[in-house]
């Protein structure tokens, strides 16, 4: 049993120290998920805060504490997608994507490097790639979540892969 389990009861009772302990245990996971959807660090932080606030509000209704991480992840993804929809992000063309490669490190398997590469993707590509490759959504689910057609989802995934492969090739050259 992980340590954060023990803070749920105190959080339900409104104990501030227990709520803070629960936040400190779960917020890094949520922020990691949110950072995959936003290029801007502050936007990811805002999405994480909204997700954690929602969690504390909905905590009395959550019956199974073991399902809390999965619930948090889904909620975080939805928060990120809602924010992206709210901004009405235009689907950037491949040529518009920054291709600097300045933030890359020398190791492809470095998580931070891959995160930086992923966050350099245009918003539309990044959302589709995140949902399909990392979250495991189908194209039909992605189309429903983002309000686009399945064909658009497939084409954006293909372009995101092309963009990422080109970026990774640059890494190898470097």
């Amino acid at each position, binding site marked *: 049993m992980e340590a954060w389990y023990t803070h749920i009861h105190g959080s339900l*009772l409104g104990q501030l120290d227990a709520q803070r302990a629960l936040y400190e245990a779960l*917020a890094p996971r949520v922020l*990691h998920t949110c950072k*995959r959807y936003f290029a801007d660090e502050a936007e990811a*932080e805002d999405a994480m805060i909204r997700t954690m*606030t929602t969690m504390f509000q909905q905590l009395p209704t959550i019956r199974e504490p073991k399902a809390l991480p999965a619930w948090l992840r889904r909620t975080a993804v939805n928060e990120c997608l809602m924010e992206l929809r709210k901004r009405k992000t235009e689907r950037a063309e491949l040529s518009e994507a920054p291709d600097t490669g300045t933030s890359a490190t020398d190791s492809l398997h470095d998580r931070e490097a891959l995160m930086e590469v*992923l966050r350099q993707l245009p918003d539309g590509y990044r959302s589709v790639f995140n949902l399909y*490759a990392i979250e495991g959504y189908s194209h039909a689910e992605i189309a429903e979540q983002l309000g686009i057609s399945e064909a658009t989802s497939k084409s954006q995934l293909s372009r995101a*892969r092309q963009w990422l492969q080109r970026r990774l090739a640059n890494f190898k050259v470097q």
Partner: protein
Amino acid sequence: MNPQDLDKLFRDALSEGRAQPRPDSWARVAAGLPSAASNAPAKSKRRVLWYRYAAAASVVLAAAGLWRTIQSPSAVAPPNHAVLELITEANAPSAPSAAQPNRPVLQPEPTTVDRPEPSAAALPPVRTEAPSSSKWALAYLEPLERSVQDDAVPLLKRRVAAPQDLAVAEKPVPRYRQLASDVSQVWTAVNAYRSSEAQPQVTVEVHVPAGVLQRVQQTKMLAQNFNQSWSTFLPKRSL
């Protein structure tokens, strides 16, 4: 790189991970925390459940009461009730027959009690039946095999007499027995009314069902086909 390999590379690296939030993030989260009474949803949920139990109990009680009402014979026949008497329209009180020949009484006459009122001479006798729940059955024409109804009196009238204290039936009588008993007392009621000269207090028209009239017509046609008079099917009585 294969697209599947690319997906796997990012999935393995970024699916799970942690990122340290800024120190001031907790203050923003704490500002939006619910109050100590965060258990309010649980309370409201309990209250909703209580209402559900109350609603379910009400439904069960109502169903039990309805079932008891249906099963109890006293619901059909209250302690104080009126005796229904059937009269014929053709022999309305304006034309009471002086001579009452023997008419088929299909069931023995129940106990008869005169109503003690000042104008007792002008009022019809109040008939008190024996304890039986059949008295509350509606007037139905009995089968033609037993008592063929006169086609001149398709319209029946029913008089409601004063309520009498009657004993409650000891055990419920089946519905078909109630109907049969009332039908058999049609002529008893007619005789009782003809013996009186008073106007009915309350009259209720009862129309003969269309099916019965159709059966009467069919019987008449059958009799004509046999070259017989319709009157041969009538009981031996004079109107």
